[in-house]
């Protein structure tokens, strides 16, 4: 199965209601005001947000208003526009090999999928022959450390941990020391999930970063924020506040294989200009993939032919 096929299959279920919705809106052939309003609604249902939906539909209206259109054309049009908007932000995570270790900090709200994402990333780095270490800095949630340890075993990399309730920043300090000593390529720091409006927890995150910088001034070399595809307009607040506290360098969108469409990505790209480095479209390790704007847009609109392939 080609790479595109895979992401398409993962996203197929995600796309269905959107595709059906657009089809249902285009019962008349001529694009009129009612149809445009209907299309706007369909986009909103994909969490695109009222503003972005209005913009996309506005673009469609300017080009095609009063003309005959098929639902295929409309979907292709949206796919184009969405790909165009996301293209600048589809940038994969590039490891700088001169940094040893390359420190990756994972942040996000509770239950977004930080630990699972680290596990999958660690495994793929290990498969490429890199030396990886995991720091279990989620010392708060019960059994979070155990969860990361299981992933460490699967990926075959050491996990630095302390008992639940220990100081996260202290643990990170030790982890960096060990990692430097061992000459690791990559060190993942798994932080506890926290809601972005909890000042004291965000302060704790800042403290972790200060400690990291104490050991390695230009680290963390990447700070990835994990977002759940089911999240709605609150994603704006999440990205804004996490960026303020932790200087997020990239986004990871998980659970895109569910019925949620992750349409909020579109609005986020506009607002925050953060690269989307990875998306999760399934449970398996290989289901964590680099984000490709065109593939995402096409599969979101249920278009199976990439055209250029």
């Amino acid at each position: 199965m080609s790479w595109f096929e895979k992401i398409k299959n993962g996203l197929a279920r995600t796309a269905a209601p959107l595709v059906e919705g657009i089809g249902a809106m285009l019962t008349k052939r001529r694009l009129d005001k009612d149809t445009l309003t209907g299309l706007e609604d369909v986009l909103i249902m994909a969490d695109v947000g009222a503003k972005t939906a209005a913009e996309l539909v506005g673009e469609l209206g300017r080009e095609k208003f009063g003309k005959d259109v098929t639902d295929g054309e409309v979907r292709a049009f949206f796919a184009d526009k969405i790909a165009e908007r996301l293209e600048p932000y589809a940038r994969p995570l590039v490891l700088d090999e001169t940094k040893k270790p390359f420190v990756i900090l994972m942040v996000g709200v509770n239950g977004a999928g930080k630990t699972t994402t680290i596990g999958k990333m660690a495994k793929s780095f290990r498969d490429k022959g890199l030396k990886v270490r995991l720091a279990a800095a989620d010392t708060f949630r019960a059994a979070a450390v155990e969860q990361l340890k299981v992933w460490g075993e699967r990926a075959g990399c050491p996990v630095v941990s302390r008992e639940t309730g220990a100081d996260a920043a202290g643990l990170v300090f030790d982890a960096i020391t060990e990692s430097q000593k061992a000459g690791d390529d990559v060190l993942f720091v798994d932080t506890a999930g926290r809601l972005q409006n909890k000042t004291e927890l965000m302060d704790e995150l800042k403290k972790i970063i200060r400690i990291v910088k104490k050991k390695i001034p230009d680290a963390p070399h990447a700070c990835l924020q994990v977002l759940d595809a089911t999240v709605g307009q609150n994603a704006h607040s999440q990205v804004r506040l996490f960026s303020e506290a932790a200087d997020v360098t990239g986004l990871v969108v998980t659970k895109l294989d569910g019925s949620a469409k992750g349409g909020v990505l579109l609005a986020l790209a506009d607002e925050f200009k953060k690269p989307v480095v990875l998306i999760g479209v399934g449970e398996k390790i290989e289901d964590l993939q680099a984000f490709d704007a065109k593939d995402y847009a096409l599969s979101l609109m249920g278009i199976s032919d990439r055209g250029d392939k």
Partner: protein
Amino acid sequence: MFDTLTEKLGAVFDRLSGRGTLSESDVDTAMREIRIALLEADVALPVVRDFIEKVRGRAVGQAVVKSVSPAQMVVKIVHDALVETLGGEEGEGLDLAAQPPVPVLMVGLQGSGKTTTSAKLALTLKKQKKRVLMASLDVYRPAAQEQLALLGKQIGVDVLPIIVGEKPAAIANRAMAEARRGGYDVVILDTAGRLSVDLDMMAEAAEIRNIVNPKETLLVVDALTGQDAVGVAREFNEKIGVTGIVLTRIDGDSRGGAALSMKAVTGRPIKFLGAGEKIEALEPFHPDRLAGRILGMGDVVSLVETAAEKMDKDEAERVAKRMMEGRFDLNDMLSQLHQMQQMGDLKSMLGLLPGMGRFKKQIDEANIDPKVFKRQEAIILSMTPVERRNPDIIKASRKKRIACGCGLSVQDVNRLLKQYEQVADMMKKVKKAGKRGLFGGLPAGFGGGFGGMPIFPF
């Protein structure tokens, strides 16, 4: 977050000169704003549409009462309709009227908070003197079973021992058998997170349901969920059968519109709210509070509760009493500063206040920084006890010493003293005006909402 619906509607209605009754076109314009407000609050579109229809019918032809603006009137109609849709009665608990052990099944997407909620529910029931057994059927997520076991230990609730490699259906059977043998009242079954489109996993959940025949099946949903809430709720309800909803992460800053979507689609009540990862009892659901939150009207009750929780009540009362007597020195100010900091992030707190939207610009421009309080605290802490009691004696040389002591400039010290004077002046007025005039001297918008809280002008 700050733009409240009332203000947006206010702008709409400002353009309308004629009063009397709300005309159809007035209402149409207003409904567009309400639609956007609901969508921004993550209420699902089909639900928004139905809801708007319902509200439109009520609003058209409604006589505008003199004392309220048309905007306030429409918002009230919307608010009431929201409360009604969310479930008029509050505090609908669990229905455990069955032969014990009564099984309770917890279901939901990955990461929605099922395990934490299971433990919170167990604690809630334990406080009601029920004997509870918990069992984790999550054999997929690494360490999920250990997580529940640890939480059980923490709150003193029994957890079914883990047998490695056992299938979820078998665990469910064993849990029920164990509960019958052990004379438990309730069995909480924490299932693995599953996507509603994952047919195999949904079938597994249905199989477990058939085995244990739960009295309650609670769908655990994250309050941060967007438009997808509707699909998730419908799928879980159709395939597994849901008896109630638990809304988690209500302590986040989402508007929680997902709750309205799910209630509307499933018709099932929202039974509890979950806030925070610390294992405390679940909170009962209050439709009116959530309605206010969805509309961005602020959640005064929650604000007051946060305040009550974080504040040293005796200290607050002592200061309030002194303020009533028109006595207010720098010690009192220090105590207020301290309490303000205790209450956490200023902006998110202001977001809970109704009508703060119009101050958004000023707040942003003023660039209020929580550190301001820290600095002000440092200034006062650099004063001697005598100075704190008699700020009038602080002249140039004392100011210099204080500035040195706190590492700030004399201007900063002056600014603080000026602020203090303003407050002290106001307190004197308060004393003159008696209790009723207390909020009269405050800038508009700060009155009312604060209730008995200490007041601090910016």
